[in-house]
């Protein structure tokens, strides 16, 4: 470490772990009770920053899916018959309890996922509570939502969520489902099951009737069994495009309703008149938020040729100041990659960038000895044919391409099977609107990036999936 780095070294400022009490083992949450898996299988949940085993969790299998769907079906009759106002009050309770326990949940999420406490504390948890609060208010107003005067719930929703925003994805799935009168069986990701199990406890505290929410920690086999279960009326999945396609095939010919929120390869487009410092902040937030493990990440930087050098210099200067390390440290910007498997995937794709002739630049930072880490990385000299420009890396790797004209920017931005997000940076209002019009993406951030809100519909075009989560639009997936 150089003297200059030492001069600006921060003292450690870790958030206390004592606020959260992780039990040595957890069961499945079925019909209001924690139970072992039918076949007694368990798996370990590991802290990606330290590889410490946090807890041993029951692993759901087919028999458990059967049990959970049956519990959700039993609960559906009375839950859907409740007046909307009463259902809403349960959700309001949940929102309030999440607020009360938000520090505990933030620390838990940071431990189990590896993302910085700054993000779980300031982004994930406030959004989780807000999401429940928002949909709570819809529960008794569904007739005004534009889906007919007396819309009905679908029944049992089978929901499968990813590991990148474990509790937030749970909120996006469960809040609208319950507000509309459905009951749910949710499978969290195998690397991040803990916050969903804490949520089960919140359901208990809120007095939620048994069976309305069932949580099945497990692997892909449990997810596949859940979406294929004949008594599931609605499937909601967030995850990879490959799995999304499998699910779409598996529900073909059934009456199951389906929404998919899948991968992305978002273009972040910087024009020559953009305010460079603000654009750089947006680029950094766009790709390094949550270590780039974000489906809507701005993973392709399209920068106008005339300002490319200036933007890249500023970007590298900024990246050199990012602090990578202990996710529980309040000064940490870049946390751990969620799993060894994901780290291997990122490494493989980055190596493909080298092999295909793009130039790699890595932010100068030391990586901790244990845990899963990947330093913020840029590739320049990237062509549209390169894998790092085409494939979702889902890590802190930014591919930089250039363009000359707005038309070229649009063509390059849209040259992907994905269509989840895009960013535009320019001072010219008409150009923002023209670009927003032509970009084939479900969310367009202009002079900002990676902003989320419960009132704002989120979801993709093309192979980024279909259906919207959030806002009035998010109700449609759970009503008939």
């Amino acid at each position, binding site marked *: 470490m150089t003297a200059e780095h030492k001069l600006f070294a921060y003292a450690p400022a870790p958030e206390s772990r004592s606020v959260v009490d992780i039990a040595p083992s957890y069961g499945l949450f079925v019909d209001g009770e924690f139970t072992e898996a039918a076949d007694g299988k368990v798996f370990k949940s590991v802290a990606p920053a330290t590889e410490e085993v946090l807890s041993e969790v029951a692993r759901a299998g087919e028999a458990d899916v059967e049990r959970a769907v049956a519990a959700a079906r039993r609960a559906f009759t009375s839950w859907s018959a409740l007046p909307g106002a009463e259902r809403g009050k349960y959700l309001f309770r949940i929102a309030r309890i999440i607020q009360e326990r938000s520090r505990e949940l933030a620390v838990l999420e940071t431990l189990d996922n590896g993302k910085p406490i700054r993000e779980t504390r300031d982004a994930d948890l406030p959004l989780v509570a*807000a999401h429940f609060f928002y949909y709570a208010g819809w529960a008794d107003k569904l007739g005004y939502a*534009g889906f007919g005067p007396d819309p009905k719930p679908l029944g049992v929703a089978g929901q499968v969520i990813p590991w990148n925003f474990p509790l937030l994805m749970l909120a996006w799935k469960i809040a609208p489902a319950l507000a509309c009168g459905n009951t749910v069986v949710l499978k969290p990701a195998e690397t991040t099951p803990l916050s969903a199990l804490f949520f089960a406890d919140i359901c208990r505290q809120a007095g939620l009737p048994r069976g309305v929410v069932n949580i099945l920690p497990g692997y892909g086999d449990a997810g596949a069994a859940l979406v294929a279960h004949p008594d599931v009326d609605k499937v909601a999945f967030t995850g990879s*495009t490959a799995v*999304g*396609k*499998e699910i*779409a*095939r598996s529900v*073909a*010919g059934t*009456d199951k309703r389906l929404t*998919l929120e*899948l991968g992305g390869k978002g273009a972040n487009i910087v024009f020559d008149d953009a*305010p460079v410092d*603000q654009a750089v902040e947006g680029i950094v937030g766009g790709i390094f938020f949550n270590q780039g493990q974000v489906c809507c990440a701005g993973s392709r930087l399209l920068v106008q040729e005339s300002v490319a050098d200036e933007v890249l210099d500023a970007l590298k200067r900024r990246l050199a100041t990012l602090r990578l390390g202990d996710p529980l440290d309040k000064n940490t910007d870049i946390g751990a990659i969620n799993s060894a498997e994901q780290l291997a995937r990122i490494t493989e794709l980055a190596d493909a960038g080298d092999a295909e002739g793009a130039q790699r630049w890595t932010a100068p930072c030391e990586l901790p000895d244990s845990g899963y880490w990947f330093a913020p990385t840029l590739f320049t000299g990237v062509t549209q044919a390169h894998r790092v420009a085409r494939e979702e890396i889902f890590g802190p790797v930014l591919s930089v391409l250039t363009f000359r004209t707005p038309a070229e920017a649009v063509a390059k931005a849209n040259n992907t*099977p994905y269509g989840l997000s895009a960013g535009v940076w320019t001072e010219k209002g008409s150009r*923002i609107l023209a670009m*927003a019009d032509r970009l084939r*993406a*479900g*969310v*367009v*951030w*202009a*002079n*900002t990036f990676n*902003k989320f*809100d419960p*009132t*704002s*519909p*989120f*979801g993709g*075009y*093309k*192979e980024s*999936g*279909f259906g*919207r989560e959030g*806002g*009035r*639009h998010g109700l449609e997936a759970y009503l008939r």
Partner: protein
Amino acid sequence: MTQADARLSVLKTYKLYVGGKFPRSESGRVYEVTDAKGRWLANAPRASRKDARDAVVAARKAVAGWSGATAYNRGQVLYRVAEMLQGRREQYVAEVADAEGLSKAKSAAQVDAAIDRWVWYAGWTDKVAQVAGGGNPVAGPYFNISAPEPTGVVAVVAPQESALLGLVSVLAPVIATGNAAVVVAAEERPLPALSLAEVLATSDVPGGVVNVLSGRTAEIAPTLAAHQDVNAIDLTGADAELARELEVAAADNLKRVLRPRQPYDWTADPGTGRLTAFLETKTVWHPTGSLGVSGSAY
């Protein structure tokens, strides 16, 4: 026998409608179309998989212009379709009566309902964005708006029974919002669809916005369902087995799928479901900033 009876009428050669032109099938194939009583009506082109791919190319070419037209303009074009159909009402009454084996009065009711359906959707073109979109009150200093956009190229497996009213009921909502369509006409009753193409061609509907293929549904539809440049598929006219097969193929590039929901009552209020089935919601954010002299411009 009067002189008029003695005159041999001029029969129409029915053709496909692709990219605003009326080609025969590239395969050179035709098949016999009969009326409800089995009497020969015409030889319809039996479209091939190549014809289906050509139609997708034509539809894709048309998307930019049609989706970029103003909603008001699209509304006027759709209304023009109603006007043209009204002018040729008697022709369609006869064709629908032949195709569906209806009395003249019942057939006329179908044609009138089809004309009115174009009017219904003509009025929707510049309203659906307000009904399906809007501003979102996000908790922060951002302007945030959601608006629907057409998904792109939509393959439409037209209803097999209702040759005109059913067809119009599935086609008009697809194009009202700015999509381009490739229609697989009712297999046994394709003539009203092929004739509708003549109306579309003279109604200022740009070439390629609607493409009509006749032939074997089970031969043409799988090509469209598997086509990587088709964004969505309406399975209304597919039977359960074919619909499942098409939905599986459609998953390959995650087409938006509208499943069949038998039975259909085409005389009922159509609602907005078929309009919104082929729309994407785009949400745009921008900082609202402040007017202060210090601090960020955003």
